């Protein structure tokens, strides 16, 4: 029996070891990315590529459960990236973290394939809930 944490990671079913799906957090070495990683510290198998390109590569190779894009990568063309990621993975949950009140950015991200846009601070719990749902 493999242990399961509160977030649905791990666990077993019918004697088989359930795969632990990867949470990919794309972000540079910034305070914001660190806050996102801290918010997800209760999850196992979180990986942290430091560019969108690398994150996309990880979605191809890893057993990706979801992708979280920290806001400090927005200098890279996020909308194009979202479209590309969505074409590659129709059902992969993709969460974009953004500053509060940047509604235009949020709408654009949603139009280009984000599953949800989460403002941080203050929505750490929203992020944890969304990721938990994505892994189920």
């Amino acid at each position: 029996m493999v242990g399961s944490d509160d977030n649905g990671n791990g666990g077993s079913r019918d004697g088989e070891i359930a795969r632990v799906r990867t949470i990919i957090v794309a972000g540079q070495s910034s305070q914001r990315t660190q806050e996102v990683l801290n918010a997800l510290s209760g999850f196992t198998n979180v990986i942290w590529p430091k560019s969108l390109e690398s994150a996309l590569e990880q979605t191809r190779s890893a057993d990706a459960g979801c992708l979280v894009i920290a806001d400090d990568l927005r200098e890279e063309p996020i909308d194009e990236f979202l479209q590309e990621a969505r074409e590659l993975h129709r059902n992969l949950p993709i969460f974009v973290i953004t500053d509060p009140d940047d509604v235009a950015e949020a709408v654009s991200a949603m139009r280009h394939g984000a599953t949800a846009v989460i403002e941080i601070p203050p929505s750490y719990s929203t992020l944890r809930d969304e990721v938990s749902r994505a892994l189920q």
Partner: protein
Amino acid sequence: MKDLPQTVYVVDDDDAVRNSLKLLLKSAGIAAETAASAQEFLSSYDVVQPGCLVLDVRMPGMSGLEMQHELNLRGAMIPVIFITGHGDIPMAVEAMQHGAFDFLQKPFRDQELLDRVQRALARDAETRTRLRHTDRIRERLASLSPREREVLDLVTQGKANKMVAGDLGVSQRTVEIHRAHVMQKMEAGSLAELVRMMMSVAP
């Protein structure tokens, strides 16, 4: 069948906003109608009417988001552009997750709204064209006999006539005749076209 003309519906409880948007749209040559509440709009809207909807989020009674939900329940495909003076990210995300075409914060430039309306109208026209096409294919499918449908399913899986004959327990000649009828009834010029048709109506 001649297409109905496209209309932009403006639903906002603010008289000044309704009137100015109607004027703006008419000045751009776009037919526009207005409603002061979600209830007023819903009581007269027919889902077959092409166009798009410019919808205020916050209104007394039924809100814009609630009205979007109601339209979804009715199977309306009309693109919805939300407008609001008090938007926030959770509200915008909810609207987009439920299929909104766009979400615009007031105040906005006239051209900004017109651009989005034009895109929404283009999307609506594309969607309706695609649906008409798939409806026609479904009608043709319904005209096939059960045996012709079996032949269709097998040939579009890539099976040769000989294999289809084996699967169905009939002669190859019989399959050829059914296949010819299928191509004729489906108005398909080639097997590739037939496969594309089936893919376009696949669930």
